[in-house]
C-alpha cells in the first residue's frame, strides 16, 4: 500500500475492526438536528527518540499514542470528547458526550466517500524504519565525534534524534473520508564550550517530513554538529548586547520567527472572528511596508510545517496574508471560516486526537525583495545584526511580541563587528512591519526546527524570510 488513505483505513479502521457501517453509526450518535457540523479524527502515532550524552547512547524511548476525537459543532458552540479505545462502544459513548451540547434529533443517512483531491507532498513512509537501529546510533556518534573534533574547547555534546510516524483519518458529517500518513524526523546537536572559566552553549539542528536518511544527504547531520560548535564559540566572544531602540537587520531563514509572532498569530481566524486580535477588521488596510508580502503555505514538499490535509481533512495550500503591505486574508479552520463567511484555508490543526482543532500556521514566510544582503548591512550606521533565535511569544490583543536572539552582532559603520550576548527583541506587530525598509533577495526557509504553542497545543511549523531591515526595534540588552 502506498496510498495514504488506504494505509490510514487499514491502521485505524480495519485493525480495530471498525466497518463503514459502524462509522456511520457513531456519526449518527454525534449528530442531531441542531448540530451544524461534526467530525471524528482517528489517530495512531508512534514516536521513537534517542539521546547521546557524555559520549554514550544514554537514553532511548518508544511511544504509541492512539485514539479518536469526536466533535459536534452547533453555531459557535463545540462539544468534544475523545477515547483511547478505537472500539465501537467507547466511540459511541464519546459521541454521546460530545453531542450533549444539543438536543437529540433524527438520524441522517449518508454514504461514506473518500476525498480524492489530496496532494502528495511527502511519501507515506514509516521513518522509524528508515534506518537500522545501528545506523541511527552510528549517525549520532559521528555527530558527537565531529563536534568534539571541531574544537578542543568543546566540553559537552548532546545529540538527540527523533522520528515520528503519524497516521490520521478524518470523517466529517457528510461522510467524507480523508487520510494522511505523516512522517517527521528531527535531529539536534547541543554543545557546551569552555574557555578560561567562561561557559557558553550552541545548538543546531533540522528536520523534515522524510526518513532519517534526510540527515545523511550531503552530510546534513554533520553540518549541524559544526554549526552548533561555531555558534557556541561565537558566544564565547560575545560582549553585552545594547539596550534601546536600534535599527535591526535580521538574517535569512529561521529569524522568520519574526513573521510568525508579529503577524502570523494575529491573523488566525479564531482571534479575528472574536475581535480579540490587533489585526481584527483590518483586511484591505496597509499593515506593513509595501516591501512585505507574507504567505502561509502548508503545501511545500517535505517541509516540517507541511501537511497533505489539515486535521479537518481540508487540503493545504498557499494563503496570502499580506501582499505588498496590504492585509489580504486570515488563516482558517472550518468552524471559523463558516462563522466568518470565508473559505477554509487548510489551517485547521490539532496536537492530537485529544485536542480540539483550531486555526494554526503551517510554513509562514516572506517573499524575497530586491536588495543584496550586503547592501542592507552596509546601510546601517549603528545597529544589530541578528541571525539566530530561540523562541518567541505574542500578545494577540495588544500586538506586542518578543523573540530572543541567540546569535547577534553589532553593526558599526555599515560593517558587522563584535558578537553580542543573547537578548530579547520586543515590538508591536502592526507597527514593526511598517518599519521594514529593505528586503533582501536571499529568501531561505528554516532548517525544520519550529514548534508552535497555542492554548497548550504544540504543532510543528516552519518559517522563512530573506534578510530584512527594521528601522527601529527595541533591543533588550544590558549595555545602555
Amino acid at each position: 500500500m502506498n496510498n495514504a488513505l488506504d494505509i490510514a483505513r487499514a491502521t485505524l479502521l480495519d485493525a480495530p475492526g471498525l466497518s463503514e457501517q459502524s462509522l456511520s453509526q457513531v456519526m449518527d450518535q454525534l449528530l442531531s438536528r441542531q448540530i451544524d457540523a461534526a467530525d471524528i479524527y482517528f489517530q495512531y502515532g508512534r514516536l521513537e527518540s534517542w539521546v547521546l550524552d557524555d559520549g554514550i547512547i544514554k537514553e532511548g524511548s518508544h511511544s504509541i499514542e492512539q485514539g479518536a476525537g469526536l466533535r459536534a459543532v452547533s453555531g459557535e458552540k463545540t462539544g468534544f470528547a475523545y477515547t483511547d479505545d478505537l472500539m465501537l462502544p467507547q466511540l459511541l459513548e464519546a459521541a454521546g458526550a460530545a453531542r450533549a451540547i444539543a438536543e437529540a434529533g433524527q438520524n441522517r443517512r449518508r454514504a461514506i466517500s473518500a476525498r480524492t483531491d489530496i496532494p502528495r507532498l511527502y511519501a507515506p513512509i514509516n521513518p522509524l524504519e528508515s534506518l537500522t537501529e545501528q545506523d541511527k546510533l552510528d549517525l549520532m556518534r559521528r555527530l558527537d565525534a565531529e563536534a568534539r573534533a571541531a574544537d578542543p574547547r568543546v566540553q559537552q555534546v548532546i545529540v538527540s534524534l527523533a522520528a515520528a510516524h503519524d497516521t490520521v483519518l478524518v470523517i466529517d458529517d457528510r461522510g467524507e473520508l480523508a487520510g494522511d500518513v505523516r512522517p517527521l524526523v528531527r535531529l539536534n546537536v547541543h554543545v557546551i564550550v569552555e574557555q578560561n572559566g567562561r561557559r557558553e552553549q550552541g545548538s543546531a539542528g533540522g528536520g523534515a517530513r522524510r526518513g532519517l536518511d534526510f540527515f545523511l544527504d550531503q552530510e546534513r547531520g554533520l553540518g549541524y554538529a559544526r554549526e552548533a560548535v561555531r555558534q557556541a564559540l561565537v558566544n564565547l566572544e560575545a560582549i553585552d548586547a545594547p539596550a534601546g531602540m536600534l535599527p535591526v537587520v535580521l538574517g535569512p531563514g529561521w529569524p522568520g520567527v519574526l513573521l510568525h509572532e508579529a503577524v502570523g498569530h494575529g491573523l488566525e481566524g479564531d482571534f479575528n472572528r472574536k475581535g480579540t486580535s490587533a489585526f481584527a477588521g483590518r483586511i484591505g488596510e496597509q499593515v506593513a511596508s509595501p516591501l512585505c508580502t507574507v504567505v502561509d503555505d502548508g503545501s511545500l514538499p517535505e517541509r516540517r510545517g507541511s501537511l497533505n490535509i489539515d486535521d479537518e481533512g481540508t487540503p493545504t495550500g498557499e494563503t496570502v496574508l499580506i501582499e505588498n503591505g496590504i492585509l489580504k486574508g486570515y488563516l482558517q479552520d472550518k468552524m471559523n471560516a463558516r462563522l466568518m463567511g470565508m473559505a477554509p484555508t487548510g489551517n485547521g490543526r490539532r496536537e492530537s486526537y485529544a485536542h480540539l482543532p483550531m486555526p494554526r500556521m503551517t510554513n509562514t514566510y516572506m517573499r524575497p525583495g530586491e536588495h543584496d544582503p550586503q547592501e542592507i548591512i552596509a546601510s546601517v550606521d549603528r545597529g544589530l545584526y541578528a541571525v539566530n533565535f530561540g523562541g518567541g511569544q505574542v500578545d494577540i490583543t495588544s500586538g506586542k511580541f518578543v523573540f530572543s536572539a541567540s546569535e547577534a552582532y553589532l553593526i558599526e559603520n555599515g560593517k558587522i563587528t563584535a558578537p553580542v550576548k543573547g537578548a530579547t527583541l520586543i515590538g508591536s506587530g502592526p507597527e514593526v512591519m511598517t518599519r521594514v525598509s529593505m528586503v533582501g533577495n536571499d529568501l531561505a526557509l528554516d532548517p525544520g526546527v519550529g514548534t508552535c504553542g497555542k492554548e497548550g497545543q504544540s504543532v510543528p511549523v516552519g518559517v522563512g524570510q530573506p534578510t530584512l531591515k527594521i528601522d527601529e526595534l527595541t533591543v533588550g540588552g544590558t549595555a545602555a
Partner: protein
Amino acid sequence: MIQYDIETLERIVADLLAEAKRQGATQAEAGVHAQEGLDVTVRLGETESVEHSNDHGLGVTVYFDHRKGSANTTDLRPEAIRETVAAACSIARHTSEDPAAGLADPELMAREISDLDLDHPWEIDPTEAANIARRCEEAARAHDPRICNSEGATVHSGRGLFVYGNTHGFVGGYPSTRHSISCAILAEQDGDMQRDYWYTNSRVPEKLKAPESVGEEAARRAVARLNPRKIDTTECPVLFKAEVAAGLMYALFNALRGPALYRRASFLLDMLGEPIFPDWVRISENPHIPQGLGSAPFDNEGVATLTRDIVSQGVLRGYILDSYSARKLGTQTTGNAGGVRNPRIDSSGETFEQLITRMGRGLLVTELMGQGSNTVTGDYSRGAAGFWIEDGRIAYPVAEITVAGNLRQMFDGLLAVGCDNDIPGAVDTGSWLIDRMTVAGN
C-alpha cells in the same frame, strides 16, 4: 467514565514488572495513570465549548545491568503490556552501558505513604460548570464600562489516578484532583485594546475563590493596562509582582538541577555552601502540605520526598537531584525526580504597598514574555509589561519594554520579598524587589 481504580492500576504495574523480568531485565520501573476531566467555556454569556477528557497510559523503563530502555503507550490492554515491555527491551539492546543508570537505591524508597488529602472530586455537570463560568465572566464584563470583549471563562475539573512501582518491591499510588476557574477579558479605550486574565485553582472545589472575584480581578488587570507608555531606556530597581516572581524561582531551580550540574552547564556550579542570595533569604520545598497543588509523598522514582531548605541564610544548601544525576555527581538523590514540590520563599515582611514605597522610582513588572533566561550563563533578558513607579506610587502602565541583567547579580541584589503571596499555583512567593536592572525602551 473512569473504568479504572487503584487496584487495577497496581495490577497493571505488577504485570509490567513481571513481564520485564520475564524478558530478562535486571531492574525495571513502571507507571500507569488514568484521568478524566471536564472543561466548560462560556464566552459572552453563551456556552462555547464542552470538552470531556479521558486519558490513560502506561510507561515502563527496563535496565539490563546498566543499559536502559523506555517505552510508553496509551493502550492499557494486556497485549499492549507485552508489546511495550518488548519495545523498551529492544531499546535497551542499543543504549550504552552507563554506570549511573538504574533504579534509586532500595533503602531510599518511601516506606510510609502518607495520605496528603489530594482527592476531592467535584460532582459537577456541564450545565453547572457553565453557570459558574457565566457568573465569572459576567462579573468581569460588569466590572468596568471599558471592558469591551471576552475570550471567555472556563471551569475545569479533573481527577486522576496513578500508580508507580519498581523491582525493589516498591509500589505506591493515589488519586488526586485539580479544579480551576479562569477568565480572559479585553478592555478598550481610545483605540487601545488590552487583554488580561486571572484564575483560581485548588485540589478542593470548595477552596476555589468565588467565580465573581476571579472575573473582577481579570477585568481590573485588563483595565489597568490600558494606554501604556513606552519608557526611555534606563537602569532602575525592578519589582517583580508575585505571579511573575514565581518564574525567577524556576530560573534558580533550573540551574540547580542535576543535568545542568553534571554537564557543567549551570551558572551556579560549585556554589554548594556558598552565599547566592542576601543572608535573610530562605527558599524551601514542602512536598507534604495537605491538599497542596504540588504535594507528593514520593518522587517519580519512589524515593521519599523531603521537606528541606534549598537556600537558608542566603547560602545554597542543596541541589535538586534524582538518583541518576546524584550518581553522576557522587552524592545522594534529593527526592526530586519530577521536580521541586511546593517551593516557597519566605517573605521579608513588607506588604506590596510598602515595597512600592520603598522602591520609590522604578519598574513594577506584571507580565513577562518569551524565554531569554540562560541557565549556562545566568544572562536574563525578557519582554515585559507593567507600571512605572514614581514617588512611591503607581504612575502609569508601561509596555513594549525589556528587563535584562544576570541572574547571579539579580539574586545578589534581592532587596525584599513581599508578603503578598496569595497567588494561584504551587509556588509560594510574594513580589521580589531587585536593586537594579537594565530596562530597554525608547
